């Protein structure tokens, strides 16, 4: 492990023990985030991307449980820490923005109360210094006249404003790593553009790393350096953003990209590309590749065997098409 690796996750496996069986929400997930880097984890609902972020933050609720793996933050295994030590990491070192700016702020406390709470807990500042810092933070995230707005309650603010407040809270203790779980999903497109520009700007300004969790490949293209594509709890493709968007290789990534309505100017409207079928039931996963049933390039072995994560052309791919031993003809 090199020094500039901030977060390294190895073989993370998270299970949910349900009455009807065990759901493997995340299976042998490995990735790393370097200092100042934006890593995006992309997947559709149920692919395990949010569970991954909650596992990293130690915020998993029962019946969810990390059964295997290591989460190393600057070389320290977060899974081995006590609750008390974990609290110190959260906020000071790693902080998180949640998807719903409407529900993740406390409606009966002012913005000031909520901002200074985390500042005072983590930075040991007195009330006045904390309030001053809170105003600075609101200024940083682009809230106009923060001295006045800080006395507001969340319901007095719009969705975009609340997401900015959430971001301000997350950034208030100078974290090295920001986990943004669908930060723009609940927002309008023009507000989404504002928030993404803000994240990019803050990354440049204070050099924090970002772990961006999203289902929207457009958002990824706008911000990320590297991309991890997840399907049914597993990494299926891992590469740089440029590689993924220029030449997606895994059939699922390819399908996902193709099915986005493009803004390109075309004379005729061709039907959108579709990935047929549906995500399999998590309680009844197929034996082989989870994507096999929907895959256009399915081979016999896909149904019976689970493909490992192959390293191909400096990316990682979970697909037999890239099996170096399979020979050229399978790939063409």
């Amino acid at each position: 492990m090199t020094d500039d690796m901030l977060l390294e996750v190895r073989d993370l496996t998270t299970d949910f023990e349900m009455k009807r069986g065990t759901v493997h929400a995340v299976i042998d997930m490995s990735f790393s985030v370097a200092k100042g880097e934006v890593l995006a984890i992309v997947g559709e609902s149920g692919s395990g991307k949010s569970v991954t972020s909650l596992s990293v933050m130690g915020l998993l609720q029962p019946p969810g449980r990390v059964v295997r793996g290591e989460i190393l933050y600057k070389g320290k295994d977060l899974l081995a820490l006590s609750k008390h030590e974990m609290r110190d990491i959260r906020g000071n070192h790693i902080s998180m923005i949640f998807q719903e700016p409407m529900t993740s702020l406390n409606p009966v406390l002012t913005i000031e109360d909520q901002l200074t709470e985390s500042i005072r807990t983590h930075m040991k500042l007195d009330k006045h210094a904390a309030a001053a810092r809170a105003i600075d933070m609101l200024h940083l995230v682009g809230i106009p006249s923060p001295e006045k707005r800080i006395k507001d309650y969340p319901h007095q603010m719009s969705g975009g404003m609340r997401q900015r407040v959430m971001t301000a809270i997350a950034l208030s203790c100078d974290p090295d790593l920001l986990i943004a779980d669908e930060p723009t999903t609940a927002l309008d497109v023009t507000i989404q553009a504002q928030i993404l520009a803000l994240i990019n700007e803050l990354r440049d300004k204070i050099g924090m790393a970002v772990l961006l969790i999203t289902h929207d490949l457009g958002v990824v293209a706008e911000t990320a350096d590297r991309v991890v594509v997840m399907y049914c709890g597993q990494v299926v493709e891992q590469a740089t953003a440029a590689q993924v968007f220029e030449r997606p290789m895994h059939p699922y990534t390819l399908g996902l990209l193709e099915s986005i309505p493009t803004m390109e100017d075309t004379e005729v409207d061709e039907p959108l590309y579709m990935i047929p079928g549906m995500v399999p039931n998590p309680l009844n996963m197929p034996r082989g590749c989870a994507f096999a049933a929907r895959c256009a390039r399915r081979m016999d072995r896909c149904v019976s065997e689970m493909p490992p994560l192959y390293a191909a052309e400096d990316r990682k791919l979970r697909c037999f098409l890239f099996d170096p031993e399979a020979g050229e003809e399978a790939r063409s």
Partner: protein
Amino acid sequence: MTEPLVQLKHLSKFFPVDTDLLGRTTSLLKAVDDLSLDILPGEAFGLVGESGCGKTTVGKMLVNLYTPTAGEIWYEGRNVASLSARQRRKLCCGIQLIFQDPYSSLNPRMTVGDIVSEPIRINNLLPREQIADRVGYLFNAVGLSANYRNRFPHEFSGGQRQRVGIARALAMQPRLIVCDEPVSALDVSIQAQVLNLLSDLREEFGLTYLFIAHGLNVVKHISDRVGVMYLGRLVEVAPKRELYRNPLHPYTKALLSAIPVTNPAQRRKRILLEGDVSSPIDPAPGCRFASRCYARSGCTSCDCETNMPELVEVSPDHFVSCYLFGSQDNGSRLAPRF
């Protein structure tokens, strides 16, 4: 020219927000304000705007869930308001609605077969013994197996539920379907399936769509013409290609530029709008977009803040409501560059 299927004439919907001691309204939420629009038979009209711009209110007035505060809705050449309750009910059978959220728009206690057949039974469209066949036919039309009819909504995924919702809308054999953000709650790969299904059904059944969405990219695929709304007002209407190639209104441009592109090499300089959508409660008299407009410096004799610009035709079928373009008086002002 063909007779429009739907004509909205100066349609407005205001909601009272506050009243004084005597019960007189003191403050109004102008959800839809003086909106005029024609929808031709067989066309798909996309209505785009951000949350709170009134696009859903337009849809609800069209299906008779809201009564307009002012203005008229003409359907098949008749003024809906002038009809008797019975006639209106009959007429509204021809207009159906597909909802945004497939999780809350299906009754969890009914089987999907009952959900789809309920409108047929209530309106006595078919003799009892033919209903089952019809439901099977509708299930096939939306790509569901007819064997699923005895299952309950919770057994289906989001995309399948949306298909059930579509089958229910088709059960009334409508001419017009109002699609209120039918894919925004769905995953990307499922969105494509539902959008393609809606395109196919339009051809098969000769449907007309009013397709409501908050992003311009989804609408691009399915619409023939697109209208952009901002705070209760229609700011631009144009045929789809014209709108995407040559957007005129500053808000349309900002909306187009806000769509993320899936090509990092193309990370563009985008138009970032300042601030948030202002409140539709007691709006200022001028252009609704004036407070966020970045193009006002290009305007010389602007009365953006005091006078509402009218929607004018600047080129064939391309309407814009902005002082920068076209003739608010008689065509003297040309499109400026910015």
